């Protein structure tokens, strides 16, 4: 902490306003009609940034993904477009229903996982590292094709046990601070932590440009930030725990419009 007295004062006031010590009594989870995207908790400036494609920096990743979509890759020499054609048609609505059940491996996979399966199996290329610029760019480009469409994830009955595991993880207290995701996002959304408003953890905008990251990042990177925040050991990127958590949150957000590439502070 820089130790500037004015900042200390502000933080004390704000943390005090949240008063987490006494605030752990259970509050009912946000009702479906009360569901609010993180967009609503942002400043007007950040909202304008998200809505203007000519200044939203997330669009740089979308543009990169578009270029990668038609780049020859791997031993196959094939492009994504060779098999999938125009992404505006073939990828429309796709991101809105991920994670999906991947029968070959009897488990759910998220969009990044699906892209890497195509790289390995259909392009004979090495999978892209999680959180790499290319993988984020492809996911942002595919996500953008569903912008404005309602989230439809979780339809498949075979997903149910994994969704339940994700929910269990969301409600489990963890870390040195012994907080669950639900403690903050269901019981205290709309209140302030430091000077941030706690949003309702709906994964409506990923991958998204977070001002704090100065970059586009995935939903899993966001989970990591929150887990580090309560001093819990984060799971590795791509772990089944994170995919289950993504599945739980996406299922809970069904019907909410996708915002990719969104902006968050």
């Amino acid at each position, binding site marked *: 902490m820089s130790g500037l007295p004015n*900042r200390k004062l502000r933080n004390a006031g704000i943390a005090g306003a949240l008063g987490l010590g006494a605030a752990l009594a259970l509050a009912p989870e946000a009702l479906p009609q009360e569901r609010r995207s993180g967009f609503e908790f942002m400043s007007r400036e950040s909202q304008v940034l998200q809505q203007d494609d000519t200044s939203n920096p997330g669009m740089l990743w979308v543009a990169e993904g578009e270029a990668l979509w038609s780049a020859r890759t791997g031993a196959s020499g094939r492009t994504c477009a060779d098999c999938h054609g125009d992404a505006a048609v073939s990828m429309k609505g796709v991101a809105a229903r991920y994670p999906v059940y991947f029968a070959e491996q009897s488990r759910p996979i998220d969009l990044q996982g699906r892209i890497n399966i195509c790289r390995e199996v259909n392009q004979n290329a090495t999978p892209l590292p999680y959180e790499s610029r290319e993988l984020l760019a492809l996911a942002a480009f595919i996500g953008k094709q569903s912008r404005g469409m309602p989230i439809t994830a979780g339809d498949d009955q075979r997903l149910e046990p994994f969704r339940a595991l994700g929910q269990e993880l969301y409600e489990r207290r963890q870390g040195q*601070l012994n907080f669950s995701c639900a403690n903050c996002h269901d019981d205290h959304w709309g209140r302030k932590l*430091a000077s941030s408003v*706690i949003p309702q953890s709906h994964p409506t905008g990923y991958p998204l440009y977070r001002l704090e990251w100065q970059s586009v990042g995935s939903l899993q990177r966001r989970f990591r930030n929150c887990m580090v925040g309560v001093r819990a050991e984060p799971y590795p990127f791509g772990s089944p725990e994170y995919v289950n958590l993504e599945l739980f949150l996406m299922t809970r957000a069904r019907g909410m419009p996708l915002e990719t590439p969104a902006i968050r502070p």
Partner: protein
Amino acid sequence: MSEGSGSMGATRRDVLAAGAGCLALIVARPARATPESMASAIKAFVGEAEVQTGKVALDIPPLVENGNSVPLTVTVESPMTQQDFVRTIAIFNEKNPQPNVAVFHLGPRAGRAVVSTRIRLGDSQNIVAIARLSDGTFWSDSAELIVTLPACVES
């Protein structure tokens, strides 16, 4: 429960504040521009000329949720004709390690003297915009803004 500061409530708050990487800890920077270094950067830009207040409008949100990206627009009142136009607009800050933010060079072909960009500010502070007109006069505006801190950042 590291920092006990008396009352139960305060202790709890400290736990949350200190324990959670959920409070951004802005890493101490090796150097910081001070109001004096801003003054000397301004001097380097204007020389001996007098800087008058007016003609320039610096539009910047008073409260910023993340200092990594702060939208800023400068508008200068000018007809932007061959005879009467804005040559340069310079932006300065008080507390970043360097006092200069940007210098924009424009001319009558701009039609209007309006420039926008996004800047980063490590802390709450005063921002100054100074325009040099074609007649050699300097005009300025300034704005005070508060930068709040993000929660749950990576450490």
